[in-house]
């Protein structure tokens, strides 16, 4: 049809080639201009691989494929003309399946060893160790199934490739084996579930116990606000209606516990002590994610959430373990929250008790002077000089 004529037209092809080359020239000119304006001292590196280059490359690959396809077709047809059987595509595919199996097994192995080793270092929390154990067990079980089933799948494809000389084996069902492979996975999964259920219950238990260090972490677009309790060990309550420029978290100063709270821009944690994160968000859902501690909990506006954990490896120790003197534990935001979702981080440092206390003593109070003014409190350091002067009152 007209379509064929269009493709076969040599004139059109030459026009297309000329057009592509011209287009490449134009785009090259653009890139060259861009490169020269960067003012590099050495010889300007022109990036000549523009869009047209890639399109042309793709077109050439398609051409190559078409040529190879035509060659194979002609070969196949000539064989058939000679009365011989054509190319045995079925066998070719079966062999490719086997090759894929071997290449795939190697690829999986490579991925596991090279990329698998690029994962998190050992868990830096008590519960994290349990999670990692469960992960190992799950991995071992699932990987056994993975390798057996994929090998059987591609192995069968090769072994039972079509042959005119035989027929398939008519076996519509076998109830015994159905029972076996229903009950076996059920048992394995039950073990995993029970193991998981009790671990989960333990981890998610966030009841406030005497001695827990409560730390307030509040997310907003696009940063985390950190607040530590003062000497009383209690965090003051918050109310979103009280949020103002000086009172970013809306801390309610009608309660005594709020007065000694401290604000911080880094999270310092004393090692081997129970930490209880008080998590909240102010505008949209964010999420507190500290992968090294195996910790994650959503920060939801209107729904305070909590996560308790005990950090076990100090930053200094972890730096030695991962052989990176600049290593830091981090908090990531892990729930899509807007344009800068990808850059909402805070540094977390796990330190000894002594270092923690010294750092804590250096933190500024949340109740800044500006906030005091806003709340009409007397300035810090001033004595309470209000004289009731009740005699002047006439009631």
């Amino acid at each position, binding site marked *: 049809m007209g379509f064929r004529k269009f493709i076969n037209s040599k004139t059109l092809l030459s026009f297309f080639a000329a057009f592509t080359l011209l287009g490449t020239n134009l785009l090259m000119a653009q890139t060259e201009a861009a490169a020269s304006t960067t003012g590099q001292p050495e010889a300007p590196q022109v990036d000549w691989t523009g869009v047209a280059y890639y399109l042309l490359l793709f077109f050439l690959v398609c051409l190559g494929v078409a040529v190879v396809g035509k060659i194979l077709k002609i070969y196949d047809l000539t064989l058939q003309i000679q009365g011989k059987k054509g190319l045995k595509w079925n066998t070719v595919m079966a062999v490719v399946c086997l090759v894929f199996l071997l290449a795939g097994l190697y690829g999986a192995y490579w991925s596991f060893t090279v990329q698998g080793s690029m994962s*998190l270092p050992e868990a830096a929390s008590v519960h994290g160790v349990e999670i990692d154990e469960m992960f190992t067990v799950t991995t071992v079980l699932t990987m056994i199934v993975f390798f057996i089933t994929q090998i059987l799948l591609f192995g069968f494809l090769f072994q039972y490739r079509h042959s005119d000389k035989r027929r398939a084996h008519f076996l519509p069902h076998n109830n015994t084996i*159905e029972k076996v492979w229903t009950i076996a996975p059920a048992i394995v999964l039950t073990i995993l579930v029970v193991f998981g259920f009790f671990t989960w219950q333990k981890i998610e238990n966030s009841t406030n116990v005497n001695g827990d260090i409560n730390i307030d972490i509040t997310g*907003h677009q696009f940063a985390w606000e950190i607040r530590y309790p003062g000497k009383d060990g209690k965090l003051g309550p918050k109310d979103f209606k009280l949020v103002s420029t000086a009172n970013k978290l809306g801390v309610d100063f009608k309660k005594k516990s709020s007065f000694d709270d401290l604000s911080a821009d880094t999270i310092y944690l004393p090692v081997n002590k129970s930490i209880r994160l008080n998590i909240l968000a102010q505008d949209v859902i964010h999420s507190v994610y500290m992968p090294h501690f195996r910790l994650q909990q959503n920060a939801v506006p209107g729904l305070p959430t909590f996560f308790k954990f005990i950090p076990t490896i100090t930053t200094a120790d972890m730096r030695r373990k991962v052989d990176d003197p600049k290593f830091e534990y981090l908090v*990531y935001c892990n729930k899509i929250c807007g344009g800068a979702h990808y850059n909402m981080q805070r540094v977390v440092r796990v330190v000894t008790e002594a270092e923690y206390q010294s750092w804590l003593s250096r933190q500024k109070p949340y109740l800044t002077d500006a906030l005091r003014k806003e709340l009409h409190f007397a300035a810090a350091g001033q004595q309470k000089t209000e004289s009731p002067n009740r005699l002047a009152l006439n009631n």
Partner: protein
Amino acid sequence: MSTLAVHDHGVAHHDDHGHEHHHNQSFLSKYVFSMDHKMIAKQFLITGITMAVIAMILSILFRIQLAYPDKTFPLLTTLLGRFAPNGRISADFYLSLVTIHGTIMVFFVLTAGLSGTFANLLIPLQLGARDMASPFMNMLSYWFFFLASVIMISSFFVQKGPASGGWTIYPPLSALPKAMPGSGMGMTLWLISMVLFIASQLMAGINYVSTILNMRTKGMDLWKMPLSVWALFLTAVLGVLAFPVLVAGVVLLVFDRSFGTSFYLSDIVLNGVQQPFEGGSPILFQHLFWFLGHPEVYIVIMPAMGISSEVMSVNSRKPIFGYHAMVYSLIGITVLSFIVWGHHMFVTGMNPFLGGVFMITTLIIAVPSAVKTFNWLATLWRGNIRFTPAMLFAIGMVSFFISGGLTGIFLGNAALDINLHDTYFVVAHFHLVMGSAAIFGMLAGVYHWFPKMFGRMMDEKLGYLHFWLTFIGAYLVFFPMHFMGLDGVPRRYYAFTEFVSMQRWLTVNVFITWSAIMAGCAQVAFLYNFISSIFIGKKATQNPWESNTLEWTTPVEHLHGNWPGEIPTVYRWPYDYSKPGAEHDFIPQTVPFSETMSSNLPQDFEDNPAGLEELNKFTSTLKANEQVK
């Protein structure tokens, strides 16, 4: 004469044509506003493929951003304008790309494109019906889908851009237009599009269920239906029960956005300004969303499973192993899928006990999925395997389903999910099960039923090329992502450049992007094959795959009403392949047992004592003759 016969059976839908004689159909009523299920199936397929290409291009765009976060591409500014200033995709538009890619792929391609196409094509043909229960509603379901697609794409052309809160659009981010540009008009258009889409799915689903329950031909009882129809039936049931809950969630979101309600909002201070919302909970939306969201993923995978079962059986020349077990597994998956939705919400801070319950139900649902996988392997065992492109894609589906399904076991375990939620581990998991397994099921269906849809064959060698490039490409793209997730790399991150710990994944990102580009280019082979074969493909025979099911007993040229004359009667189940003693290695469902005495087995007559009598007579005669010899 044949016209009369057709009129008798299809009276209802003929009247709706508004034409006196069904031969004189205008172009509009034959190709555009068609009420014929076969045409509607093709409409769903073409729209689905178009949306898939669009969503794939979106994914290549954001993969380029991830691979080259520091490079400028002036072409992007030319193409995308304000969304990509100075040759870099903006952070907000990146989130839009990710959102619309997910929305289109999950809903428009894998739900409408997959079940819309194959339910419409196969249900009447494989059951022996002239058309769907309500051809008019069927047509409406397509046109609502088309309208929804147009509106979804139109959201790219509004000032602030398309919705960008992720395909899960959690409030308050999606409820507050000031929270991000994509939560403005783009979000409104997304919500409108989805309401229309769900309306389309409901109309379609009710049609499918009614047709399957009421319009099967003589002899076609439920246990003689092919697995493809079983899967599409249960998918439709899931859809009808689950989609309305998302509508509820969407309606409440519309109210929160536009009418000052506080269903999902409370205690909000946005950009330093207190918002007047109190008493709501964002978690409510998540429950409503995932109550659909989880059945949705089974709506996506079950038709692919049904199609693969069918394709694998035909091409192994063997019955699908454990037909009854396969049906019960599908039913099990359908029922269980309603009680696992909370596993998407383990880290929301909801009551841990609730999380524990959802963990238990989630791991239970792994059992029927495992059973199905083992049954597929057993179908291949001792088969006589023909490698058509459809067969390769069906096998690819099984391979991806194994890989992706196994990682689901990690994520279903709440304790493990703590560190894996919203990381690339999840991205790898769902792309393997949905973006690979389900799409391969769909492609298997396209290659297998292309002759039925278009009366021509697709090119086999191009099909082989398409398969291997896509299969290898998909594994190269998604396998490394598991390890990124295990290293704590979060998803929906515009760039990895802000975190020192993520630097080592930058080269992997480049590798993944190029693998994705290769896999994307491989789709050109499919598109060229699909489009050119419609016009210049080799003309197909009536039953090119030598299959047993009913759709291959219709003539190659499409007929309104499917069969000229009487609809065939069905005598046997669809899986009599390679029956010992049979002349050919397949026996269509329409062949009565009386014609195949040499291959009949006692189990064929479980509900037919008279037939069993005949069989015993035949075998004893045979034995007597043998003894004489």
